[in-house]
């Protein structure tokens, strides 16, 4: 039983039944590959399918039903179609630039994803901030995409994306701090262990300010990454054609996969910060204390289902509501989200320090 090395390495060796010790680098590569193949790509598939099916259900339509049983293979069909449709003109430097920045912003944070008590590859003191930073770099990537567009509206879209990202970043950071105040640290394990399993012990429901911080965190994340229902600037529907004008083929697939991963990451972080992460009830913990793999997979399932529910809510709201203009979105972020974020910060600080004051 090779017990030494970080928890995720032990887990990995157990999963693959390897004996003897292997360099952590190799194990890390296997782990990343494992997450990417079995978590992100299937996640994109399921969410894309659910998004289209749920959207169709809301609109009294049938939705995809040709590819596979009730259209389940529609995302695969879309993916194959996009793969074989590449844009004729050769890749220019500005295209290359945005693709590199876009994908580096996203897939660098795969290692940071908290998936369970032992599957924590990067559990440093500031690990909660890394997804926030990768979201900012994603906004930079979308801006560069806008600048690489041949049309006038593409450049307008780029500047608007930058403006919207800044206005979303401030309240997101503040609400991130509010979560940190309650749990006393930004380590994933700190954040998760400070919350109990039953909903009452979750951060969001422990005090009203944390609940307010959850809402502000989710909305400002959507604003920061121009995700639906805040994606007025990216949508080709409005007059100026948005950032994705004339984007199709493989680059469109990169863009879509990137946007899925961004919303998935943000919902995951939200459920760890505010919705009790992967905490299993005490009895279950004791029961499973011996078999590490079972406990870890149960924790991951719990965490991913919370993330899935958060993403469903976002899909629901975005399908039903119209989109507001970009300047109204930034107005909303500065004049509504930021004050409420500060209120939540001050409130939860007082709440946390109440004991010391009196």
């Amino acid at each position, binding site marked *: 039983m090779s017990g030494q090395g970080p928890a995720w390495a032990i887990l990995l060796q157990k999963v693959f039944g390897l004996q003897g010790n292997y360099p952590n680098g190799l194990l890390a590569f296997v782990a990343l590959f494992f997450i990417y193949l079995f978590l992100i790509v299937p996640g994109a598939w399921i969410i894309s399918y659910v998004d289209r099916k749920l*959207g169709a259900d*809301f*609109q*009294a*339509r049938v939705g995809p039903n040709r590819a596979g049983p009730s259209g389940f293979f529609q995302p695969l069909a879309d993916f194959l179609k996009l793969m074989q449709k590449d844009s004729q003109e050769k890749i220019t430097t500005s295209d290359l630039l945005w693709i590199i920045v876009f994908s580096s912003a996203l897939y660098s944070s795969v290692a940071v994803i908290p998936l369970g008590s032992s599957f924590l590859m990067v559990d440093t003191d500031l690990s909660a901030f890394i997804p926030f930073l990768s979201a900012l770099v994603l906004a930079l990537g979308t801006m560069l995409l806008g600048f690489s567009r041949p049309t*006038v*509206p593409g450049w*307008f879209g780029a500047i608007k994306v930058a403006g919207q990202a800044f206005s979303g970043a401030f309240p997101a950071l503040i609400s991130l701090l509010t979560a940190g105040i309650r749990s006393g640290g930004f380590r994933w394990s700190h954040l998760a262990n400070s919350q109990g399993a039953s909903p009452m012990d979750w951060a969001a429901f422990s005090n009203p300010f944390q609940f307010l911080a959850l809402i502000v965190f989710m909305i400002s994340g959507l604003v920061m990454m121009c995700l639906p*229902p805040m994606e*007025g600037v990216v*949508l*080709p*529907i*409005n*007059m*100026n*054609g948005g950032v994705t004008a004339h984007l199709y083929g493989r680059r469109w697939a990169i863009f879509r996969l990137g946007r899925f991963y961004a919303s998935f990451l943000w919902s995951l972080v939200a459920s760890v910060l505010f919705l009790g992460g992967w905490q299993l009830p005490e009895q279950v913990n004791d029961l499973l204390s011996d078999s590490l793999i079972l406990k870890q997979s149960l924790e991951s399932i719990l965490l991913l289902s919370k993330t899935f529910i958060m993403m469903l809510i976002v899909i629901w709201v975005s*399908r*039903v*509501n*119209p*989109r*507001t*203009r*970009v*300047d*109204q979105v930034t107005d909303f972020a500065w004049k509504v989200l930021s004050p409420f974020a500060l209120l939540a910060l001050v409130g939860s600080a007082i709440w946390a320090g109440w004991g010391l004051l009196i």
Partner: protein
Amino acid sequence: MSFSLFGERLKTDVTNWEVGPYHLSLPGPIRLSLKLDGEVIISGEVETGFLHRGLEKCFELHSWKSAIPYADRLDPEAAVFGELVYCLAVEEAANTLVPPRAQAIRIILSELTRISCHLANAVRIARAVGAETVLHYLLRDREKIIDLFELLTGARFSLNFLRIGGVRADVTEGFIERVLDVCDLIRVRLKEYNDLFTFNHAFLKRTINVGVLSPALIKKYGMTGPNARASGINADVRKDRPYSGYEILDFEVPLGRGEGGTLGDAHERFLIRLREVSQSIEILKQVTEGLPLGEYLTPTEDKAVPEGEAYVRVESSRGLLGCHLMSLGGTAPHRVQFRAPSGFHLQAVPELITGLKLEDLSVVLASLDLSISEADR
């Protein structure tokens, strides 16, 4: 160089940008050449004529009766109004009488077309604002009305059902009950649209105080119909000069109240069209209950219309649709000229869009309910 933190606006130099003739958010094939200062439109010109097909010349090449399918194609989405205005003009020139039952059937058809056109306009506004869900609900309900057309006339859009002196055939047996069912269904739906969309905050923010049409602008460009009534100008042809039996119906014409934003903004135009749909439902109920008996057509042989001239106007879903007809006693009309409301609304677009934000351009164009095929003829 005096550096003022907030006073100095981000200086952007003027770019100009050609939009069209085919673009996602234009109401039809027109070309807008816009001068943009950053986000704000400084000036815009409209170039039309992409849909000009010499419709009025076609009337001169056909006999009176075989010109009726051409009247359908004046505004393909609202075919009955083109037919109605042409038939009324010929009837006035040739002095033929229309039996009351035919007049009632004509009212039923024009009110149904008005509802279908207002729903189609709501679809365009919803698409401009990006509200997918309500868009599909509107299309689904409009389908019910188009099924009614197919039941009565046999065609979905270009009906070719009116004839000079009446209508082509009588009402089929199940038609009246189906009309009443559709009326009740649409009333239920209107309530659903209001909950889901009309007072949704995001929609309000996109349309309140956007594209305000002042009464002066309306008078200057001769705008009529819902666009004018949304700015408080009470002018409806069905009330001012009733035609084809509207005088016996009592209905009140909705006017813009301007309680949400200012009077005459895009939201007011959207609201007034929904109110007109509910008012059309009232009219349909009255007409279908009191459908007079008697035959549906005074037969007129298609040969010649005595020499004469007539100018008739009809309240179409977009405004005052007039038809000036001149006949020299031949078997074909000598000159038919249509006064298309969309032509006048299109005139006001350059002045209306100056100072508008670029993203609101598609909302304003959609709220004006322009039919380019009617404007270009």
